[in-house]
């Protein structure tokens, strides 16, 4: 190609690259959402808050209808919010010549190996659309604002860090948008929420038998000097300072506790609080997790390892998010049994025939691994039945159990990051909210209750799906909002 033609095309490409970066970014959902208590930021465990952002387009042809003559991407990075000062990016797997040719603007400065992006907007141009082998990635570390940390430390020293009622958490976010010319082709957003978790040790809740010694989530309904409070969020492993809680008066007084390796504790009608300081509410976290019996029916040859992986991840996800629920699997290999394969079928259409057959255990969870190309489904005809297809991901089974225990999809709800297990899609789902864990445990038609795995007070919660039993209209409808604490860990 003649040099002047190449120049013209290059000029056009550069014009495209920098002409349209003002596209709307408000539609970007949170890919991750970290929550750090203010008392933890003084010794922030940096390795815990590392993110990896792949370089490249979300879809393989980059963008529908975009011009095909460009070969480079540009990144727009926004660092926002009081607690955040900067983001550090370290690229790996970038070819050396490309890494050396990167250009930085705005608040971005440094090199591909160590790029600092200050608060505001930074830009990188010259990143590859695609490289041979695995995609290049950027390791992203967050830098907290030193002045903000100093301010928190000063407040702590003055004894003023305790959360004032109604004070919103400090928050920040880092957004990375990848552009191909003026076309946005991928995006990543990480939210940081830093609530003031410290309360003075005046009135208190004391947790005992915390099996894993983890920092439990505690939701409190009570009366404060400002009036009734609902679902006040607290954290702690043992003794949790509450500040001043007053006698109930006309307020609901209830506590729900979520902790790894322990069953959810729902304590209604708390009578421990008085108008004097020094009240203690003792909560025993015994029993440990509620283990739901689970029957895995392997109607597809070779599905055992997949089922192991799926059940392992379900147990990990449910426990590490404080839900207090686990799964005890029994594996049934029936792929060589033609009657079993025919009865089980390949989806919920076969569920009515499965119920009452030898391949179904009533009153317990049943999961069918079948030879059909779909991901997974929980059956409305009986919430104890879920089918898992050949293209499921490692979160599919955990997701279907969520439906079994009354949860609906969280699609389109901006309060939830895309990592919520009940988003009806995606391949990197890792979290349940406490509001969801409450429903799985306490909602009257959750299979945890209808199967008799849990015995305790139940509720008739909104934002749930129909179950195997109908909830009495007299059942208490008080439940925390679904999105209560979307990131318990």
């Amino acid at each position, binding site marked *: 190609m003649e040099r002047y033609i190449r120049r013209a095309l290059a000029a056009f490409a550069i014009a495209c690259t920098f002409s349209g970066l003002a596209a709307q970014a408000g539609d970007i959902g949170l890919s991750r959402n970290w929550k750090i208590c203010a008392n933890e930021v003084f010794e922030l465990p940096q390795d815990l808050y590392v993110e990896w952002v792949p370089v490249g387009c979300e879809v*393989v042809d980059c963008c529908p209808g975009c011009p095909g003559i460009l070969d480079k991407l540009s990144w727009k990075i926004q660092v926002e919010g009081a607690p955040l000062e900067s983001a550090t990016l370290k690229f790996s797997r970038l070819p050396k010549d490309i890494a050396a040719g990167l250009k930085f603007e705005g608040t971005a400065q440094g090199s591909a190996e160590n790029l600092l992006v200050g608060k505001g907007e930074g830009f990188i141009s010259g990143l590859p659309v695609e490289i041979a082998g695995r995609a290049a990635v950027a390791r992203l570390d967050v830098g907290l604002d030193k002045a903000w940390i100093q301010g928190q430390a000063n407040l702590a020293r003055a004894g003023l860090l305790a959360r004032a009622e109604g004070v919103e958490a400090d928050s920040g976010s880092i957004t990375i948008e990848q552009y191909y010319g003026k076309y946005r082709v991928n995006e990543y957003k990480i939210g940081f929420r830093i609530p003031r978790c410290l309360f003075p040790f005046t009135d208190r809740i004391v947790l005992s038998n915390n099996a894993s010694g983890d920092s439990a989530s505690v939701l409190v309904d009570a009366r404060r000097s400002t009036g009734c409070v609902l679902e006040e969020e607290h954290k702690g492993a043992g003794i949790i300072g509450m500040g001043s809680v007053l006698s109930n008066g006309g307020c609901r007084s209830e506590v729900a506790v979520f902790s790894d390796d322990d069953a959810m504790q729902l304590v209604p009608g708390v009578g421990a609080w008085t108008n004097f300081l020094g009240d203690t509410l003792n909560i025993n976290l015994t029993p440990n997790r509620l283990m739901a019996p689970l029957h895995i029916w392997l109607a597809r040859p070779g599905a055992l390892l997949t089922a*192991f*992986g799926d059940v392992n991840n379900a147990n990990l996800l449910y426990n590490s998010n404080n839900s207090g629920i686990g799964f005890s699997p029994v594996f049934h290999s029936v792929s060589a049994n033609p009657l079993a394969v025919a009865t089980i079928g390949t989806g919920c259409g076969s569920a009515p025939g499965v119920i009452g057959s030898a391949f179904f255990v009533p009153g317990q969870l049943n999961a069918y691994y079948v030879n059909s190309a779909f991901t997974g489904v929980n059956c409305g005809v009986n919430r104890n039945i879920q089918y898992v297809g050949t293209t499921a991901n490692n979160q599919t089974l955990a997701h279907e159990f969520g439906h079994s225990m009354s949860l609906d999809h969280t699609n389109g709800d901006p309060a939830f990051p895309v990592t919520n297990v009940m988003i009806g*899609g995606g391949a990197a789902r890792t979290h349940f909210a406490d509001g969801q864990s409450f429903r799985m445990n306490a909602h009257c038609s959750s299979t945890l209750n209808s199967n008799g795995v849990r015995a305790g007070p139940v509720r008739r919660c909104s934002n749930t799906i129909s179950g195997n039993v109908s909830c009495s209209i007299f059942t208490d409808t008080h439940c925390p909002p679904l999105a209560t604490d979307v990131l318990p860990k």
Partner: protein
Amino acid sequence: MNSCKKMCVAVGVALLAVTGLSAAAEIPPEQSLAIRQAVVAWLECEECTESELETVARYGELAVPTLGAALERGPSPASLEKYRLHLESTYQKVVEYSRTHDEIKLEQSQEEYVKMYLENYQANYVVRSAEALGKVGGREAARFLEAASKRKVREDVDAVVQEAAKTVAK
């Protein structure tokens, strides 16, 4: 004169690039973004109860090149890497978790675990893009499906591709 000619050609090429792309299939960035999001929502949905396929079908032929590319090549390298990182992280967490929890059955190495789920992820992209192309229809969609029906893929995926190729409205 010679430099003037070169300049004219350069400007002409640039203009041709702009107008040619507009005249061909260039889509405004906002619409391109909406189509990408709709396609990805369909390719990655679980039970797909939120009208994901219908949304893709409403874009008709505008979505066909992206669906065809996904049918041929699966997820993008960046999406594959994102899932791979998630799988590696999950495996490590499961290993750690297994030290204190007896119910965990670890029968695979990390490499086997990651490979198994990545293959399913890629298979799901082929299945979903074939189903969407079959729903959208048209000559280009049929061409993509016909080409895919001749490729060797695993049995469960092949059944979906063959069905879509057979029933797509041309």
